């Protein structure tokens, strides 16, 4: 499915703003994303599996509160860098 990456993660995707990844939950999808782009998951998810403070992840336009959110085959996942100050 489609994953939209913010600018601050595109060093992992060779500049791509949109990549493909697979999974039936958000956690599975992020694991797959990390296999394709090593290191990317830890920059947005901490070691306790929490979305980092200044990151938001949207699934089909809704904020995903945790990694257990179910994904449909045509879901669009958007990772956003949010309000970190100057």
């Amino acid at each position, binding site marked *: 499915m489609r994953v939209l990456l*913010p600018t*601050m*993660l595109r060093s992992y995707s060779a500049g791509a703003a949109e990549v493909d990844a697979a999974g039936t939950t958000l956690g599975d999808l992020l694991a797959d994303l990390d296999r394709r782009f*090593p*290191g990317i998951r*830890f*920059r*947005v*998810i*901490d*070691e*306790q*599996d*929490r979305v*980092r403070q*200044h*990151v938001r992840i949207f699934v089909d336009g809704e904020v995903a509160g945790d990694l257990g959110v179910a994904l449909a085959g045509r879901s669009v996942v958007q990772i956003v*860098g*949010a309000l*970190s*100050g100057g």
Partner: protein
Amino acid sequence: MLLVATRKGAWILHGDSARRTWRVDGPHLLGQVVNHLVMDPRDGRTLLMAAKTGHLGPTIFRSDDLGRTWKEAARPPAFPKVDDGTNGRAVSHTFWLEAGPASEPGVWWAGTSPPGLFCSEDGGATWESVSGWNDHPMYSKWVPADSGTPDGPLLNQIVIDPRDARHMYVATSTGGVFESSDRAASWAPLNKGVEANFMPDPYPEYGQDAHYLAQSRVRPDRIYQQNHCGIYRIDRPADVWERIGRNMPADIGDIGFSIVAHPRNADVAWVFPMDGTEVWPRTSPGGKPAVYRTRDAGASWERQDRGFPAEQGWFTVKRQAFAIDSLDPVGIYLGTTGGELWASSDEGESWHEIVRHLPEIYSVVPAGAA
């Protein structure tokens, strides 16, 4: 060479043999919040960088080509995952990187916020939680949940005894200094005589805020400490610190973030005092920057301010941003939160600005030849 870490990236300054002219190389990883950039003294080549961004979590970058390319750690420092539903710790940022001894190539140690200790055995590629500290039965006492500096509570420094790599010290902002004699497997406080005037008991066993330690290279039993509450010295095996900051001029005081020790003379050290009166501005007292040098292990101090602004110089120098090289005469460097880097190539006698307009400087580390 000077490795300069800032809130917005890193710079590498290459100096001439007189340490007078510096070529500025950078920025490296512009926009990353870089708390520490260090060179591996065992090979004089490898760089390790502790970084995060405003949005993204903490990681470690490594360069084998002086910053032309950077490779991210496969497993950065991270606390063990706890059972779901509990409020487990997560590394906010790595604050300090320390190379292991020459006898342990590839070993690196890291101190983090919240105060955690991590070790890598493979040159910084993968990091493991050091249970002896992170799971210590006293951890919640040494690191109270509501403690912290403005940037979070810190394990802000790791010192390894050059004679015995199993003998280590750590400095924390929450509990003071701790010592291990078994390569970080167990720890004990080392804070006797150190004031914590913000605590109900002003001389507690732990709870001090140890800003910076300077261990003498030629006499490793001697350690200087710039603490939140003054300047101290200890000569092991004594276990009581002496407040040598009492010998500073009363109108200057002994508040600051850092202290450096002369690489060849254990009686010589420098501090950069900052204003700790009233609301703690932590700027140069009176707006007149100066370092103070002791040449008798803290019994007396002398002012060195030639070259600094004579007035209206409101410098703040953070704990990692005051550094000394090992050349003769020694060079001393200080980076300000205003992005100015100042240097002395004559043991503090005179100072000159070598670069300005950088972002807020977090750390300055001399590396290799100047």
